[in-house]
């Protein structure tokens, strides 16, 4: 299993993703440079969090034009597995690999806190190690995580089981208070139709060791590493 983590200028969770995947025995983890067009025959591509190119425009809007993203798009269109976390999710939206857009958080402030996610669909390459309805604790850390798509897209996502994670309270119930950013339907993560590209705002890579407060993120890391295609 080879994991490729893309490093854009301004990525700052590349190292965290690297460390998280390194926890899984037998997994090879490499960094992929934004200016290269070599995916290094990775099995899975990770677009990490951070502020690619500073994100002084809309988040992810410049990263999508980077050299490596052309290859990532080809890779995804060919069925390759891609996970975008936080800024990586924003880049997937900007690249058109996932539908919808991110707006500024509803309170117009950056938010970093632990959230509870409810797994809505475990029949994916990204969540197979979790069960439906399972609650996962991990941090969010973003200024633009307020997911929006037009009603047709939302209803399609909902009906086809493509909403993978939702923000809920510790009892597993969707509430306004449990939603850190105002995302429509409390959506925290979605997948594409083909099931090979997933984006999520929360940070599973920051929740893989108990000393950090939660190891629930391992569910996602393990799903990716243990499933054989």
């Amino acid at each position, binding site marked *: 299993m080879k994991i490729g983590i893309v490093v854009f*200028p*301004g990525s*700052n*969770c590349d*190292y*965290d993703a690297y*460390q*998280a995947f390194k926890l899984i025995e037998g997994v090879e983890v490499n960094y992929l440079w934004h200016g290269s067009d070599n995916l290094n025959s990775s099995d899975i591509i990770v677009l990490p*969090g*951070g*502020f690619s*190119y*500073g*994100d*002084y425009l809309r988040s992810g809007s410049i990263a999508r034009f980077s050299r490596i993203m052309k290859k990532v798009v080809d890779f995804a269109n060919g069925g390759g597995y891609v996970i975008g976390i936080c800024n990586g999710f924003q880049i997937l939206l900007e690249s058109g690999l996932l539908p919808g857009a991110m707006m500024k958080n509803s*309170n*117009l*402030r*950056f*938010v*970093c*806190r632990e959230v509870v996610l409810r797994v809505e669909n475990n029949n994916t390459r990204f969540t197979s190690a979790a069960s439906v309805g399972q609650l996962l604790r991990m*941090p969010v*850390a973003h*200024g633009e995580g307020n997911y929006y798509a037009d009603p047709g897209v939302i209803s399609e996502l909902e009906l086809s089981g493509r909403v993978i994670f939702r923000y809920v309270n510790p009892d597993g119930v969707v509430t306004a208070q449990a939603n850190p950013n105002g995302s429509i339907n409390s959506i925290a993560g979605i997948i594409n139709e083909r099931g090979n590209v997933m984006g999520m705002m929360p*940070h599973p*890579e*920051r929740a*893989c*060791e108990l*000393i*950090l407060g939660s190891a629930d993120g391992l569910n996602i890391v393990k799903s990716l590493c243990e499933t054989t295609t």
Partner: protein
Amino acid sequence: MEPTVDLKTAKDHGLSEEEYQQITEILGRTPTFTEIGIYSVMWSEHCSYKNSIAQLKTLPREGPALLAKAGDENAGAIDIGDGLAVVFKIESHNHPSAVEPYQGAATGVGGILRDIFTMGARPVAVLNSLRFGSLENPRVRYLFDGVIRGIGDYGNCFGVPDIGGEIYFEDAYTGNPLVNAMAVGIAKHSELVSAVSKGTGNVALIVGSSTGRDGIHGATFASEELSEKSEARRPSVQIGDPFTEKLLLEASLEIIRKKLLVGIQDMGAAGITCSSSEMSAKGKSGMRIDIDKVPVREEAMTPYEIMLSESQERMLVVCAPENIAEVKKIFEKWGLHAVEIGSVIDGGQLIVNSNGGKVADIPADSLVLGGGAPVYIRQQKRPDYLDKHQKFNLMSVPAAGDMNEALEKLLASPNIASKKWVYQQYDTSVRTSTAVGPGSSAGIIRIRKTDKALAVSTDCNGRYCYLDPRQGAKIAVAESALNVAVSGGRPVGVTNCLNFGNPHDPEIYYQFAESVAGMGEACAAFETPVTGGNVSFYNEDPERAVYPTPVIGMVGVIENTSHITTISFKEAGHHIYLIGQTKDELGGSEYLKTIHNKVTGKLPLINLENHKKTIDLILELIRSKIVLSAQDISDGGLAVALAECCFPNGIGAQLTLDVGIRPDSLLFGETQSRVIFTAAPAGAITIENIAAKYDLPVQKIGTTGGPDLKINELIDMPVAKLRRGYEGAIPAYMESVIKT
């Protein structure tokens, strides 16, 4: 053509007549305009410490584990074993934040981060020690909001977790907030680098951002009082670009790791001027700079402007000629400039050439602290107000009628209330090493590939230092050391940020000298050398000077991550212990201020020897693995400390305290050297045995559990209700910012 220079030019630059005389003597001629600019920034308080260095030299600055001592490098460095060093420093950005809160605070964070990575260390944490006026004041809310956003946006984008600090609200800071940023980094010993320039023929490169007109005379601005005219100083405030800083970090660490350089220094205050002169003076060499080669981002910049610009995210790198190509390649990879602007020359002159001519030719050593920069010992006068406060009779203050109500009020006072509204705007978990984030006694970062962790705390009670500068400073050191200890760490070193008013005022200078003396005594007692920091004078608005505020940044080493201890009660049925004895000490307390609207009285006593024993005792208890939570007692006293232990897990407690003193002293007095901790009932014998070795009062005072906090017959309140007030206080003020 440059303007001609005379005494008036010098005075316009903030130099005194004597200083101007001294400059003409050093040069043996009238200085050029560029030269007068250079002297004015280098001899400003901010760069030269001219009014403070004599006092600072009295601080304990030696220790067996020190790798870089105060004043030697951009930040202090302490050996923490395993071939690693912790590199840390705190610095102020008060004046810029007073006129332009967002950029002022942002660039404060940027500057302190560069101080860390210019040493070869990767920043692993930041903390912020902040002080504002009352949140009732709309301008204060504007400043507070801007500062928080500035700190957040810079650190979040750069990718460093914020792990704590402190925030106080006192009228004394209304027009002149204090914005102190601390950064902590980790480096391998073998990769620590120096801010030195030497080796004739070596080359100086400017790397990072291009140079603009922002921040010209920022250092001079920082060295005068704030007034109505300060608004015109907004152009002196630099503009931050955290994205470029992140690239600069990666590129700098790469050239350091590959050992491609002789020395490197960041360009903070006084830009190219400060970095080139300090590096040269340290290497006892000279430097010739061709100012026309500096990449600029504005048209028609003069040599004067380029030399004094404080544009952010720049470094000066000195390397051997054979390494230039490799250095340039690395910076190019990160999309940054690396341009040769000068070379190391024999002798000690700093020569600046422009357009074929010479605009400056100065002995580098004459510019710097420890060289030719002036040193002043100012007049001191003990302020009269001190006696009035010392003599204040506490018996004239009646105890609050309803202690439940008093506790609620205290928990909702902005000084004590939860700062969650603030730190939720900071990334606290990036880099996946934050074991304990903001809101506990100390922030804790684990150190990868070792069993260790770092515990870091910043502390200072400005009200205390106002009422008694010497004792207040001692207590600041004592509190920070205890915060680190109750978290499981052994305090190893201090960085300080000394925020005071105008040093030409003898009463202010007295506060300063006394604070430094108190700090020195305490640091010596705890064996925590001062590794550096920053002095910020002239913190005054037209109404008043700030409280003397010598902020302490304490770093501790946790030997094993299993010793990490937090304040929260873990479950019901645990025993609660108190180390120390509560006395009738309400002077200077938060209680006196919040409930009785009085800032007065004698401070609680601090016995440094006893305090050190308290630190050793709690550390031994923690290491013996029987301590389940620990919390020091400070602002708001025992009742507030207990409530804070209840909040995280919503676990109440029942306590029975010895009486014999005023009930308000018992609950809210701020007697020093006290710790509350919990243990399972089975730990009782071990605790007794360990405590017996220390000759300190240790007693069981209660049990955890239930939904309420109950103390004697005095307090009986639902934890949930107390917590709502505690967490709601600051949002209640700040949500009005959004509405209006």
